[in-house]
């Protein structure tokens, strides 16, 4: 658990982060959203002491981080930045092995961990271990960046616009990979982005920042239904709200008995995809398939109700 308590960071008399308090539950993903200059990156960088707070306290599992030497703390926390920040003169393998090496792991153990991680990120170790970062595609570089951050099995992963430099198709894939990895290892992730779509897709909690202040921190559905300020509402996008709400739900959770005609939709698909398919095919209900079997239907009427403003 990360507890941020009344934290403030001042530069030249200006509060870049202004008395922010935020608790991040273990094994959850917290996405900090805001425009540039909102203080979101500064807030995140205070968690691994890349920025020292002017006042306030941060506790990790109850321990005040002020008492931990910065380099020790950082070796326990994974860190991923936009544009991956790979060391251009070191091979992929050497890059991933950075923190294990700093921690003095045995050579064998480090090598095994590197190969394990590369495999996890669908990069064949034999093929990629000895390549240099510039020989990789943008998507591959980004995956190596995340693999490097996870090398020493940190409980916490900090990510600063990790997908900012990727094109939309690769970005969607990278987001799915991240969710899968988070589910597998139970890592606590703090992710900074300016993209509300990304925040809604990834976050268990969304923290919206503006002008150094934390405006709202809540589950995505809550943020969409009840934005705390006009700014939060604007960030979500007024005309996007119903679709964003739908994107949070899965077809499987809103199955209705009955039979519908035509092409089926997968139970794991989002309600938003189902809604789009209903509109596009002009049907009022879609059959739902799970493991190749039709298990029920999803209806336009039900989705319309779910997407409506909460009363």
């Amino acid at each position, binding site marked *: 658990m990360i507890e941020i308590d009344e934290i403030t960071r001042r530069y030249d008399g200006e509060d870049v982060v202004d008395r922010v308090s935020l608790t991040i539950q273990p094994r959850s993903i917290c996405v900090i959203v805001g425009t540039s200059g909102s203080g979101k990156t500064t807030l995140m960088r205070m968690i*691994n002491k*890349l920025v020292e707070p002017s006042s306030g306290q941060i506790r990790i599992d109850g321990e005040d981080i002020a008492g931990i030497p*910065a*380099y*020790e*703390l*950082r*070796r*326990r926390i994974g*860190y991923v*930045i*936009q*544009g*991956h*920040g*790979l*060391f*251009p*003169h*070191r091979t992929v393998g050497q890059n991933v092995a*950075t*923190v294990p090496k*700093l921690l003095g792991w045995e050579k064998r153990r480090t090598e095994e961990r590197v190969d394990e991680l590369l495999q996890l990120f669908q990069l064949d170790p034999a093929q990629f271990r000895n390549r*240099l*970062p*510039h020989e990789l595609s943008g998507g591959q570089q980004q995956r190596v*960046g995340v693999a*490097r*951050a996870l090398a020493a099995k940190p409980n916490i992963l*900090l990510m600063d616009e990790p997908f900012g430099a990727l094109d939309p198709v690769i970005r969607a894939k990278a987001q799915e990979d991240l969710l899968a990895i988070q589910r597998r290892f139970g890592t606590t992730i703090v992710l900074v982005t300016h993209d509300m779509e990304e925040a809604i897709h990834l976050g268990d909690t969304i923290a919206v920042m503006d002008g150094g202040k934390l405006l709202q921190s809540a589950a995505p559905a809550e943020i969409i239904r009840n934005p705390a300020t006009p700014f939060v509402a604007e960030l979500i996008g007024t005309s996007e709200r119903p679709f964003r709400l739908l994107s949070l739900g899965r077809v499987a959770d809103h199955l209705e008995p009955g039979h519908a005609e035509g092409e089926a939709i997968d139970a794991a698909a989002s309600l938003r995809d189902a809604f789009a398919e209903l509109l596009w095919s002009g049907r009022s209900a879609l059959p739902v398939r799970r493991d190749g079997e039709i298990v029920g239907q999803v209806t336009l009427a039900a989705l319309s109700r779910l997407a409506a403003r909460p009363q």
Partner: protein
Amino acid sequence: MSIAGISPLTARTGWFKLDKLGVLISLVALAGAWLPFVLFRANRIVPGDPRPVTEALPGPWAALLITVLLVGLLAALFRVAPGVKLIMGLVVLGSLFVLLGLSANFLTPDSDSFARISPGAGFWLLLLAFALLVTDALARLRLRPWVRIAILLGVVGAMVLLLGSGSFNQVSTLKEYATRAPAFWSEARTHLALAFGSVALASVVGIPLGIWCFRIKRVRAAVLNLLNMVQTIPSIALFGLLIAPLAWMAANIPGASALGISGIGTAPALVALFAYSLLPIVSNTLVGLLGVPPAAVDAAMGMGMTGRQRLLGVELPLAFPVILTGIRIVLVQNIGLATIAALIGGGGFGVFVFQGIGQTAMDLVLLGAVPTVVLAFAAAVVLDALVETTSRGTRKP
């Protein structure tokens, strides 16, 4: 498809199109073939008597040279592969040198130790023309660093063989060498010690100084301005100005003269060359460190590297190619500047250059100048190759 139809056609006719640089090379080479190949002098001082190719060499050899030149010109003029141009250029250059030695043997009357045969304007122009051909071919081939070093070693090996075989002994510059061989090698050692020693010293001092400037912004401008100022002092003045303080040190600091410090000679020359080397090394270290991608530094910090680990593991390795470029610049520069050391009794190849100027003996000037140029050139090739191999990953090829 019209494009597909045209391209093989142009590929076929392209061979016949003239190479523009080849035209220039041909003009230079033709002028070279027309001008005297060697100069004959009855003794060291009298003006030269020009001899064209046809008179400079025995008939068959003259015919061979002309044939080789013609083939070389064809390779230059037409758009053949750069590899072919390179090999032809090297063949012509090799022939020129072998035949220069042959010509000297041919023209020197038996048992005449006064006659001098030196390369004429024609020889130099032919050398220039085909050196251009080789340079162009090498630039187009973009060879890998180690291939370039291999070619350099091959050329140096061929030169050593040619000089060692004695076939060159009648060429005037080698006659100057013959009378002062021990002095030549001792000046060569001094020259190398001056050039390499000053660069080594400057690296040992300059790289930490550059790191210091990088870490502490306030000292940056002051250090760089001071070093800039040093650069504006003309080399001969700096050499001269160091005489007095070093003489004072030798006289007043115990043990200084035992270390070889004295007012004239090698010490002021070494110090002057060292002073000139500092700016490029310090500023390149600084520029290299400033050019390290901020994302890599941020990542290094975020992963918990200490300042030392970051410097040694990330910043210096990434800045290294730029630092090495600085070292390359000063090494090449100092190999040339070390010739000036002779003016203050510091020794080096400059001794022969200045003696030669004093005696208007160009052969003697060449005895000092040619090794200096060869040394500087070889240093440039080797260090360029090193810069390229060390910059793996830091710059896209």
